[in-house]
C-alpha cells in the first residue's frame, strides 16, 4: 500500500512522536508513505478565517504538488494528513474547489502563476485512523498484534476537527473508529462521552483561563472514568492536554494523565519499542501506565 504523506508543521515539531510512531506503524503494516515534496503550511484554522480565498490557494498548492507527485511515481491519489487541522483544511479546500466556482477560478489562476496545475478530481485527503481501520482493516491489524495491551484503559479522545464538519468516516457526535482500533490492540476504552469536546484549541495560548478549563474537564473526566491514559489523533489536542498539566494542577487539581497518540498505542501492540514510538517525548510520563501491560 502506497500513500502520499503530508506531515504538516506539528509533526515536525511538537508532534514529533506522532510522526515517528505513525511511520513506525506504517512500516510494520507494510504501508509506504511518500512525503509530498516541498509542502508548505496548510494555513490551519487561522488563515481560513482571515482570508478565505488565499487560504484555499495556500492549501491548494499542497494538493497540486501531491497530485503531481502521485502522477510522477504512479501512487494512489490519497494524501494522509495526520494532524486534524491539516486534514480539515486540505479537505475543506478540496470541497471548495469542487463546489465554489469562483474560488476555483481564483485558485487556478494563483496556481498557474506559480507554474502549478489544478489538482484533478479523485484526489482524496485521508486521516491515518481512517486508512488503518478502513483500508488495512481491523482483521489484518489484529493478526499482526504481538503484544496486546491487556488491562490498559484508555479514554478515546477525537477532538473536534476530525469529524466536524465533515464526518467522512465516522459519526459527528459519537465517533467509534479509534475505540475499535484500540480494542484490536487489546486495550479497553472507557465510556467517554467527551470524545469530541473542545481541547481548548488556541485558547490555551490566547485566553488561558478558558483554555485550561476546557483541557481540565477532559482530563479529570478521563481520570474519573478510570482511564490510565488519554489517546488522541491530533497533535494540538495532545499538546494542550499533555503540556499544561502543571498549570492545571495549580489552578484546579493534579490529574497526572498521560496523553498518547493512537499510533503509539497501536505500535506498542504491534511489538514496537517505546523508543521507536517516541513514548519518552511525552511531558506527563506514560511509562508507569504502560509498565507490565504487554
Amino acid at each position, binding site marked *: 500500500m502506497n500513500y502520499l504523506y503530508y506531515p504538516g508543521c506539528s509533526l515536525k515539531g511538537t508532534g514529533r512522536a506522532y510522526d515517528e510512531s505513525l511511520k513506525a506503524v506504517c512500516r510494520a503494516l507494510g504501508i509506504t508513505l511518500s512525503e509530498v515534496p516541498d509542502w508548505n503550511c496548510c494555513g490551519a484554522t487561522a488563515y481560513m478565517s482571515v482570508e478565505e480565498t488565499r487560504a484555499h490557494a495556500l492549501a491548494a498548492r499542497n494538493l497540486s504538488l501531491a497530485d503531481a507527485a502521485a502522477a510522477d511515481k504512479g501512487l494512489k491519489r490519497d494524501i494522509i494528513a495526520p494532524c486534524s487541522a491539516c486534514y480539515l483544511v486540505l479537505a475543506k479546500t478540496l470541497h471548495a474547489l469542487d463546489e465554489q466556482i469562483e474560488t476555483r477560478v481564483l485558485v487556478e489562476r494563483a496556481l498557474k502563476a506559480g507554474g502549478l496545475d489544478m489538482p484533478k478530481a479523485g484526489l482524496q485527503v485521508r486521516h491515518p485512523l481512517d486508512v488503518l481501520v478502513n483500508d488495512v482493516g481491523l482483521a489484518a491489524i489484529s493478526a499482526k498484534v504481538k503484544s496486546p495491551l491487556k488491562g490498559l484503559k484508555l479514554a478515546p479522545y477525537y477532538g473536534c476537527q476530525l469529524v466536524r464538519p465533515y464526518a467522512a468516516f465516522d*459519526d459527528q457526535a*459519537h465517533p467509534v473508529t479509534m475505540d475499535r482500533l484500540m480494542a484490536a490492540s487489546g486495550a479497553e476504552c472507557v465510556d467517554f462521552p467527551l470524545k469530541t469536546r473542545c481541547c481548548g484549541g488556541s485558547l490555551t495560548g490566547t485566553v488561558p483561563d478558558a483554555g485550561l478549563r476546557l483541557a481540565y474537564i477532559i482530563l479529570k473526566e478521563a481520570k474519573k472514568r478510570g482511564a490510565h491514559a488519554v489517546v488522541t489523533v491530533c497533535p494540538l489536542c495532545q499538546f494542550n492536554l499533555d503540556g499544561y498539566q502543571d498549570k492545571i494542577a495549580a489552578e484546579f487539581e493534579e490529574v497526572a494523565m498521560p496523553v498518547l497518540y493512537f499510533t503509539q498505542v497501536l505500535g506498542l501492540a504491534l511489538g514496537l519499542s517505546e523508543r521507536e514510538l517516541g513514548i519518552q517525548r511525552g511531558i506527563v510520563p506514560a511509562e508507569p501506565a504502560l509498565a507490565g501491560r504487554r
Partner: protein
Amino acid sequence: MKSASNGSGPKIGFYICHCGTNIAGTIDVEAVREHAAKLPGVAVSKGYKYMCSDPGQEMIAQDIRAQGLERLVVAACSPNLHEETFRKAAAKGGLNPFFFQMVNIREHASWVHEDKAAATQKAEDQVRAAIHRVRFHKALEKKRVPVHPDVMVVGGGIAGIHAALTAANAGKKVILVEREATIGGHMALFDKTFPTLDCSACILTPKMSAVKGHPNITLWAYSEVTKVEGYVGNFKVTVKRKPRYVKEDLCVGCDACIDACVFKEAKFPDEFNQGLSKRKPVYLSFPQATPKVVTIDPKTCIQLKTGKCKMTCAAACDRKAIDFGQKEESKEVPVGAIILTTGFDAFDPKRHEYYGYGRYPNVYSALEVERLVNASGPTGGDVVLRDGRRPEAIGIIHCVGSRDEHTNKWCSRVCCMYSLKLAHLLKERTGAQVYNFYIDMRTPGKTFEEFYDRLLKEGVQFVRGRVAEVNDWAMTREEEGRLVIRVEDTLAGFVRRIPVDMVVLSQGLEARKDALDVRRIFNIGCGSDGFFQERHPKLAPVSTFADGIFIAGACQGPKDIPDTVAQAGAAAAEALALVDAGHVEMEPNTSRVVEEECSGCKSCVPLCPYSAITFDEAKKKASINEILCKGCGVCAAACPSGSIRQNLFEDDEIFGEIEGVLS
C-alpha cells in the same frame, strides 16, 4: 357580437371572466375579448364579472341554444376549480361537454404577473391557442362503472377504528386490517390525553370492543395488505394473515397458556411497554387487547424455533386453541373504497447522538414515559428510574427530531402539548422539579393555551432554548452522578447547565419506515417528508390521487387525536359517498391503441404507472384498460409508432394549440 366567422369550421363561443379584480386587475379583459372576437370561427365573444356564477353559466347555455354554438372556450381560473362547472353549462345548452376548452388566465397569468400589457398579451396567446385547439375536439362520453359496496380500512389505530365504525354504522360491510396483534395503535399506549387529561384507555377501549362486536365489521388483526388490483369502486385486495399459532375463534385470552409456558420468567422485551418490561414467547399485548387472543412469537418460542419443547402451553389450553402448525394465509377480497390509516413512527432518539439516548439509562423517550406513567404500565404508574432511583429533577426536551435541519424539518404538532401533559403527570407522580426546554411553545388547539397556563401556575419550569447536549460529566458537586442538560437560555441570554435525574426526549412524528412500500401497493403519493400526499391540502384533505383511496390520521402528517378522529370521519364520509352512489364516472381522457398501427414492441407496457396496459400475446398487440388508465399520457408520448392516441390530447388538438400560440 358576431364576428367574421368564415363558416368553414364549427361556431365557437368565447367567454372571459373578470373574477372580480383577480383577473381584471391585471389583464385588460376587454382587449382580450376583442382580440378573440376577431379570430376565425368565433361567433360569440363576451366578458362577465363572475363566469362561474349562475347568471354566467346561464348566459353560456342560452348562447349555445340561441346562436347554435358548436364549441366553447372559457378563459378564467384553473380547470381544477371550474372545468366541471363549464362542462355542465355546455351540457345544459345541449352541447357535448367535451366540446369545451378552459384557459387558465388567472393562475397562469394575472396572479403571476405585474406588467399589465405583458399579462394581457400572454392571455391573448393562451386564448388563441384554445380557440385553435377546440375546433378539433371530439364528442366524448364518461363511462359509468358500478361500485362494490364494501369498504376496507387499513390500520387499526384510533383513525382506523373511527373510520371503520362510522362506515359500519352507516350499514356498510367493513374489513379492518391491522398489522399488529391488536388494534388500538399509539393511543392505546397513553395514560392520559391532552389537554383534558381524560384517561386514554377509558375513551379508546369501548371503541375497540365496539369494533370487535360490530356485525358489519370483519377484523383481521396480525395481517397486512400485500397487493391491490383493480380501480376505483372495484378493488381486489390481497391480505396476508400472519400465523399467530393460536386459533382466533377458539382462544378467549384466559392467560392459562401464558402461565404454563416453559419459560417460568418473562425474559423478552415487551414491545407494547417499549421494552420497559418483559414478556414470554406467548403473550397478550395488554389486558384490553382486541381481538383478545394470545399470540406466539416465532422468534422466541422454543417449539417454533427448534421443534423441541414440551409444549406446556398447548396442554394447558382446555379449548385446544394452540396450533403450532398454523400457516400464513392469503385472502383476496373485493372492496369499493379503501381508507388508509396507517399512522406514524415516533422519531428514534438514538439518531440524536448529543442527547445520549441509549447511552445513559435515565434518558427516556416520550413513548417510554407514556408507559412509565401509565396505571397499567410496567410499574403501575410509579415513576421509578432504570437505576431504581426516584427523580428529583426532570428535564423534558422538546423538538427531538422536529424542526431540525439534520433530521426532520417539520413541526410534529403534538409534542409541545404532550410534553406539557407529561410534565403535569410527572410532577404529580414524583413531586420533582420539572423543566421544559422548548424552541417555541405551540399551543394553538382548543383550550391548549389554557393548559399551558395551568402548567405555568403549577410551577413547571420553562426554558426557551434548544438543548445542546445531555452529558454525565460534572463541573460542580451538585452535578456529580447526575445528568447535565446544557442549553442556551435565550430569554436569560446565557448558557446554563441544569443537573437532572431524568431526561425525557419529546420525539417528533415521522412517516412509517415502510411508507414508501405501502405507497406503491396502494398507488398513492408521498410528500418530501414521507407522509402520504393528500389530493389537495385544503379542499381534498383525505382524498389521494388514486380515486377511491382515502387517507386519514397521522399517515397524512402529524396530528393529535381530535384532528385524527375528525379526518377519519371525513374519510369514512368520502368513502360512503363513493360506494353509496352505486357507480363512478370515469374521465374520458384515456389512451387507446390503434391496433392496425401497433407493432407489438411492448415499450409502453412497463411505462404505465397504473398497470393499465397489457399485451395480447395472441394478437401481438398492446391493449389499454380504459378503466385503469388515468390519462397521464406517458404511453402516447413514448409509443415509437405513434399508435397510441389519447382522448383530449390527440395530435391535431395539440398541433392546433401550438399553431394558436404561434399565430
